[in-house]
């Protein structure tokens, strides 16, 4: 081992202890029953349990809806922020990004309190609002970044070739900002599909998400079933990140 590569050792130890080992443990637990025998039982239990499947589907639905709303709200916001004619000061960008500086749990608690003061009935609506509020900056920032760095000459070339401002937007700016959108989707979808705290606070535990079920199982010492559910979620998240890698290659890796 050369001198320089030994600098990586602390990180290697960190990765083994806090990433690789826990993952292996989840795998091992997921395929064991309570007494340590190998089994697929945990998975068959999940796929036969209509309640669990329903919660799983609801989690996916909430995550997809949150992500979609975040794109619809975040893209125009990022576009305005990156447009120097509309936004002349850096202060507005900081204002948009500032919620990221505050702990998500505190923001969620504050939101719940706000709904309480306003007398809004907690439910799926408040859950969505809270999720979007929490994760919108994570959508805006990567899109803003890519729009801000985008060479203006692409838009000019498109206009020169006869594109109306609307066509310039759809045929050039949106496709070229895809890497930013995908980063945003990853940063919003992944945490929303696995969250449990937000639904707990913003629906008063009326709506259970997949994360909630995992948490409940593990809290009540159902380690093996909890591990199996975690593995299912990991696979879902893994699939989403595969999507990003493929897209990156297509667009020439411009992030």
């Amino acid at each position, binding site marked *: 081992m050369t001198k320089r590569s030994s600098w990586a050792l602390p990180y290697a130890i960190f990765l083994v202890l806090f990433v690789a080992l826990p993952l292996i443990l989840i795998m091992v637990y997921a395929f064991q029953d309570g007494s340590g025998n190998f089994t697929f039982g945990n998975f068959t239990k999940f796929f036969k349990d209509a309640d669990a499947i329903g919660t799983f589907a609801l989690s996916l639905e909430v995550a997809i809806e949150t992500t979609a709303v975040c794109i619809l709200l975040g893209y125009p916001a990022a576009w305005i922020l990156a447009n120097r004619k509309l936004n002349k000061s850096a202060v507005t960008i900081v204002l948009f990004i500032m919620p990221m500086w505050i702990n998500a749990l505190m923001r969620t608690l504050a939101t719940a309190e706000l709904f309480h003061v306003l007398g809004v009935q907690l439910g799926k609506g408040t859950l969505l609002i809270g999720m979007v509020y929490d994760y919108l900056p994570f959508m805006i920032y990567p899109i803003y970044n890519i729009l801000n760095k985008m*060479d203006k*000459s*692409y838009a*000019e*070339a*498109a*206009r*020169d*070739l*006869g*594109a*109306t401002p609307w*066509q310039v937007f759809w*045929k*050039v700016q949106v*496709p*070229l900002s*895809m890497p930013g959108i995908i980063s945003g989707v990853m940063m919003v979808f992944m945490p929303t599909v696995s969250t449990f705290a937000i639904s707990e606070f913003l629906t008063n535990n009326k709506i259970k998400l997949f994360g909630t079920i995992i948490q409940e199982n593990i809290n009540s010492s159902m380690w093996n079933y909890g591990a199996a559910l975690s593995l299912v979620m990991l696979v879902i998240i893994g699939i989403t990140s595969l999507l990003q890698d493929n897209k990156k290659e297509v*667009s*020439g890796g*411009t992030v």
Partner: protein
Amino acid sequence: MKNKDYIIEFRNISKSFGEKCILDDISFYVKKGEFITLLGPSGCGKTTLLRLLGGFGNPDKGEILINGENITDIPAHQRPVNTVFQRYALFPHLDVYENIAFGLKLQKVPTDEIDKRVRKVLKMVSMTDYEDRDVESLSGGQQQRVAIARAIVNQPKVLLLDEPLAALDLKMRKDMQIELKEMHRKLGITFIYVTHDQEEALTLSDTIVVMNEGKIQQIGTPTDIYNEPQNSFVADFIGESNILNGKMVRDKLVEFVGHEFECVDEGFGENVDVDVVVRPEDIYIMNRTEGAQFTGKVKSCTFKGVHYEMFVDTESGYELMIQDYNAFEPEAEVGLIIRPADIQVMKKERTCNTFEAEIVDENHVKFFDETFECKPQDKFAAGEKVKVEVKFQKVELIDHPEEGMLSGEVHFLLYKGDHYHLTVKTDEGYHIWVDTNDIWDKGDLVGINIAPKDIKIVKCDD
């Protein structure tokens, strides 16, 4: 006036960005089918002018006409022009074929027609078989070709080219120049080309528009511009030249470097100060000194490939640049001859500095927002508007800007054989012209002083 030979007319175009005036009352026209080049140093406004034509930005004043129709307020996407951008601006998310077809698809041209036209232009730019390539995998020269193809496939009336060859290496640039010229001939459309490379402009153009500091310096054919520059800026910018102070003795007789020469110019008047331009290849150099118009001693001799470049000190104290196929060793005594037709005489833009000023009291005068001491005078009353004249050689430049009455920056310099003629721009944006034997560089920060005895106050004539 409407002339159907003119495809484009610029009328009194002015444009400023903030305080800085980029284009100052530009007017000229472009003939149909012409290859016209906007030539000038960086920052002269040539790219801004091209962008105004493309529809990127609006002039503050003036109008632009295409085919007699005012298009000043028409947005970029509706103008019958297409642009080849400096950095190509090919869409990275589309392949070569899709890039070229982009404009046609927007126009809803039928697919088979698009296919035909794309293949035709690909052939024209020698890029057949590259349809499916990712544009980012292409070399600079290939991207350049795709950019040209993407523009001409739309069959614009005018093709705008913004320094399209600037990013290519010399060999490739030469090849592309020939191809562009050929393409212009085949397409028969008007090309408007922007470059800072005078050689490129001379090679390609039917007409050259020389620009500097937002103003047109000269419009003409390449030979006109080269052989008969209208002012010292054009003479200096286009090719190599000896620019010298001279005096028109009478018609067809001019004096410079301490000798009188026959020339072909007339109509300047008698004993009028002029600028004289002699191209280095137009001075005949020979070994013997008898029969020569004047003589000198070779100072240096450098081989330049096709010719030798020599600097010769004349016995009257001027330094001339001479290019010849024969080499003459340093220290050699040589005879020199200049033929009448090779002497280009230009009217001087100014013979001394003239500033608008205001009298403060009998020995102070104010100009450039600064009060200067002058010789005591009683001809003008305090507060009176006057003009101040200062000879070029009486303006003193010093190294430390803070020690001068005014401070500024050397903006432009011209070697005149025995001295430098500098344009100094003060911090407030005024121009002062200075003759000096000291060597300054462009961009040097200087202090400017004028001695009281050198400030001449004259009456305002208007």
